[in-house]
C-alpha cells in the first residue's frame, strides 16, 4: 500500500501537480484523484491547465517578488539619501544664518568701497583739473622765462652798445684842442669807459 507522499510524487511526476497543491488532500483523496485522472482525459487536461497556470503564476510571482525586493532596496537607499539630504538641509540652514550675516557685511563693505570709488573718482577729476591748470601755468612760466632771458641779454647788449657809442663819441671829442675839455673828457673816459 503506497503512502501519501508516494502518491503525491506520482501526481507530480505524471500530471505535474506540485506537492504543495496536493498537500491539502488526504491519502484517500490522492488515490481518488489518481483514479479519476487515469480514466478522464478531460480531467488531465484541466489539471495540466491548472499546473501550467500555476507555473505561470509562480513565475510572475517570482518576478514581482524580485521587483518588490528591488523596489524595497531602492526605497531603502532613497530613504537613506533623503535622510542625508535632510541632514544637509539642516546643515545648510544652520550655515545660512552666518552666511547671511557675512553677505550683509560684504554688502556693506561693497557699498563703502563704492562710496570710496566715487570719492576717489571725484578727487581724480579735481586733480585732473588741477594738473591742467598747473600745466597751463607752467607753460606760461616757461614762455615768460624764455622771454625774460632774451630781455635780460637784450638789455645788457643795449647798455654795452651805449657804452661803446659813448666811448666812440668821447674819442672824437678828444680830437679837439681845448685842454680843459680834454682833461675832463680823459678823466671821464678813464673812469667810466675803460
Amino acid at each position, binding site marked *: 500500500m503506497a503512502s501519501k507522499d508516494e502518491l503525491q510524487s506520482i501526481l507530480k511526476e505524471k500530471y505535474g501537480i506540485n506537492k504543495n497543491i496536493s498537500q491539502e488532500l488526504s491519502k484517500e483523496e490522492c488515490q481518488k484523484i489518481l483514479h479519476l485522472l487515469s480514466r478522464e482525459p478531460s480531467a488531465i487536461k484541466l489539471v495540466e491547465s491548472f499546473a501550467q497556470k500555476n507555473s505561470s503564476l509562480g513565475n510572475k510571482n517570482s518576478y514581482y517578488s524580485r521587483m518588490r525586493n528591488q523596489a524595497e532596496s531602492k526605497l531603502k537607499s532613497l530613504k537613506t539619501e533623503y535622510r542625508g539630504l535632510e541632514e544637509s538641509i539642516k546643515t545648510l540652514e544652520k550655515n545660512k544664518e552666518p552666511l547671511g550675516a557675512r553677505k550683509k557685511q560684504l554688502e556693506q563693505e561693497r557699498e563703502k568701497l563704492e562710496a570710496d570709488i566715487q570719492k576717489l573718482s571725484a578727487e581724480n577729476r579735481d586733480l585732473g583739473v588741477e594738473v591742467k591748470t598747473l600745466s597751463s601755468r607752467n607753460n606760461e612760466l616757461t614762455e615768460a622765462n624764455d622771454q625774460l632771458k632774451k630781455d*635780460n641779454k*637784450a638789455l645788457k647788449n643795449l647798455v654795452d652798445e651805449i657804452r*661803446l657809442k659813448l666811448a*666812440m663819441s668821447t674819442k672824437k671829442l678828444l680830437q679837439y684842442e681845448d685842454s680843459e675839455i680834454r682833461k675832463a673828457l680823459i678823466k671821464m673816459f678813464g673812469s667810466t*669807459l675803460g
Partner: protein
Amino acid sequence: MNLEGKELGELFRLADEIGGKRYHRLTPQDFEDYRRFDYWRYVSGDFECGTTQESKDWVKDHSDWDCPICEKSYSKTGGKTIDHKLPRAQYPWLSLNFENLWVICRACNQRKGDMHWYEYEHYMFTRYPVLYLAVKSARPSKLLRSLNDQTNPETIR
C-alpha cells in the same frame, strides 16, 4: 636799488653786474641746448675723445689761413678754434646756431672770453682800436635783433 647820486662809472658797473646774471632759471632744456654744441664738436660730446669729422669739415669750410680778427696765421697763434659770438653759457639756445659760430685763433678766443658782444666790441675799441673794424664787421646783428623778438628764442636744431 637806489641809483640816485651814482656816478656814470658806478651805473655801468651795476649794469655789467646785472647783465652778467642769468635772470631766467637755467632749465634742463637750457642745459640740453648748451650741450648740443659739445655733441656736434666732440666725439660722444667729450672733449677728450677728440673732435668730430663733421665739425672739422665745418671749420675747414669756414676759415682760411689767417684769423679774421688779428689777421695772424693760425699756426702762430695757437691754431683754429670755434667761438660763440654770443657765448653759449649766456645764450644756450644759440649754442648750435651756425650764425653764432665763427673760427678765430686761440689767442683772440682767449682774449674774448665770455664777453657779451658789445662788451667785446667796446673792449676791442678801447684796447685794440686797430682790430676794432674786423670785430665790428663780424657783429651778429641778426641774432642781436632776435633778442627783441616777442617769440620764442631762435634756435637751429
